[in-house]
């Protein structure tokens, strides 16, 4: 659906993107992940045909971005970093305008309008002036704008930035509900977001792709051991030794509180059953046992610090 080959973008002397290539299948949700200034927005602007690459080719739904920009534009819905809203218009007026410049016919526009207002939860505020809407609603209007012409490809630049936690969840659910019927690329600097919504993560750093993989795979590649966190009611020094003797446990150390322990275990060895048995037998009073998964945050830190590509 999206095919990017050897794309480089230079602003004068500055190289914003350096020879990036990737392709995305139909129906996938993919996250562009990277610190601010990594080249996420530049990549998206090239995909949408807003600006041309210095070199390299981009194909969207089979159309070349430079040779057939109009076809590409018809196939893309784009939500820039700040939603492109005409604040003086009402929601319906605004969406009508967008529908028309996306070249929808009057009847088609009417059908899409009703559907999109429902899908984005804007039906109640459709007659209100956008200037009077809250940030969350404005973001929804931004999404509605990207969806109005039912494009197969959706490009969302930091769709949840600046929203409160409830709004973030709402927007994420909305995006997830669009998966399957749409191919979605979103950019984010929030790692949790990429893990929560996306099947594939493309990590960009200093204009280069440092990793392309699923969030789980990325984590697995980077971790050598698993960590278990254990909290008991009655801690005693004996327990610490006994825990160390369970097979598969590499190291036991005291946790942040006197009654908690951190156990480093070998990958693939599930010691949880034995561990609970031991704690119960000793009457230590099991309070909590959790596995500490390597977060994308860790992956990200490792990847963007070393220049070695992973995956």
């Amino acid at each position, binding site marked *: 659906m999206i095919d990017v080959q050897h794309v480089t973008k230079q602003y004068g002397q500055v190289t914003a993107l350096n020879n990036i290539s990737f392709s995305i299948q139909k129906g996938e949700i993919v996250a562009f992940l990277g610190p601010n200034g990594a080249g996420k927005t530049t990549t998206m602007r090239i995909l949408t045909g*807003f*600006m041309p690459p210095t070199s390299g080719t981009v194909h969207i739904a089979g159309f070349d971005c430079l040779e057939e920009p109009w076809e590409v534009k018809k196939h893309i819905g784009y939500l820039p970093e700040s939603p492109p809203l*005409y604040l003086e218009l009402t929601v319906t007026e605004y969406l009508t305008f967008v529908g028309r*410049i996306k070249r929808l*016919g009057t009847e088609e526009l009417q059908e899409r309008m009703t559907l999109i207002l429902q899908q984005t939860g804007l039906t109640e505020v459709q007659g209100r002036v956008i200037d009077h809407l809250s940030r969350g609603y404005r973001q929804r209007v931004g999404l509605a704008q990207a969806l109005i012409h039912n494009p197969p490809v959706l490009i969302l630049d930091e769709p949840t930035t600046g929203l409160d936690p409830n709004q973030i969840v709402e927007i994420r659910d909305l995006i997830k509900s669009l998966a399957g019927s749409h191919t979605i690329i979103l950019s984010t600097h929030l790692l949790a977001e990429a893990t929560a919504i996306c099947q594939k993560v493309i990590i960009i750093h200093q204009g280069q792709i440092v990793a392309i993989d699923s969030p789980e795979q990325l984590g697995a590649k980077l971790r050598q051991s698993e960590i278990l966190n254990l909290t008991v009611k009655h801690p005693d020094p004996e327990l610490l030794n006994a825990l160390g003797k369970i097979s598969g446990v590499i190291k036991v150390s005291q946790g942040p509180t006197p009654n908690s322990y951190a156990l480093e275990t070998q990958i693939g060895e599930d010691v949880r059953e034995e561990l609970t048995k031991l704690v119960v037998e000793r009457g230590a009073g099991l309070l909590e046992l959790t596995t500490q998964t390597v977060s994308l945050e860790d992956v990200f830190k490792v990847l963007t610090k070393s220049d070695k590509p992973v995956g």
Partner: protein
Amino acid sequence: MSMNPVHTIVAKELRSFFVSPVVYVIGAIFLAVIGLLSYQAVANASNQALRLMQLQNTYAQLNLNEMIFRPLFQSMNLILMIILPLLTMRLFAEERKLRTFELLLTSPIGVNEIVSGKFLSVVIVYSGLLALTALIPLTLSAYATFDWNPIILGYLALFLQGSLMLSIGLFASALTENQIIAAFLSFGLILGLWVLGALSSAFGDSTLGNILSYLSFTEHYERLIRGLLNMKDLVYYITGMVFMWFAAHQAIDAYRWK
């Protein structure tokens, strides 16, 4: 059936113009100043008439076109120079500032359609303001007789002159995301064209003098409000607008291809 993209842009622009207070403020100032100026011109004319009557002890027939309308058209030109940049400043600057430009430029419509739509919308607003000032000659016609032809030509001159200034403002607005800078830029460009006219007289009837005076709108405007319809003046205004249209188009291309 889908709507022509230029119509879509025009409709949206007109909607935006009329929900913003700017147009009403500009319109009110424009009409108030012109009202005052025409009152002053009429008062002046009647004073002169009285004086002539006292001197000659006869009923004097004054040429109202010369006494009222020509000076009025001349001062309207000056007011336009100040007021029209305020009308055009938001056209592109606001789109750039609010990032709505990204929406326009990633939609399947051409830059030529965007520029044309924006230009047409602002010409329509200006024509509306101009139409309201027609109340002045209409009111006067109830009390005095005068020749309508020079007045119609005067309005044509105002329309062309204003549209040229609007096209300059359109270009200026495409250069920046700051509306104030856009306004000053178009004001500066218009003022520059005006000064060229004054400068041309310093060179007399030389080639340079002629070129300068052709480039400036002063001589073209003067001829039209004097009631002279010349092909060369019409060509001047039309080519000027077309040139500024292209310049605006180029500025937008440069913005996205930078």
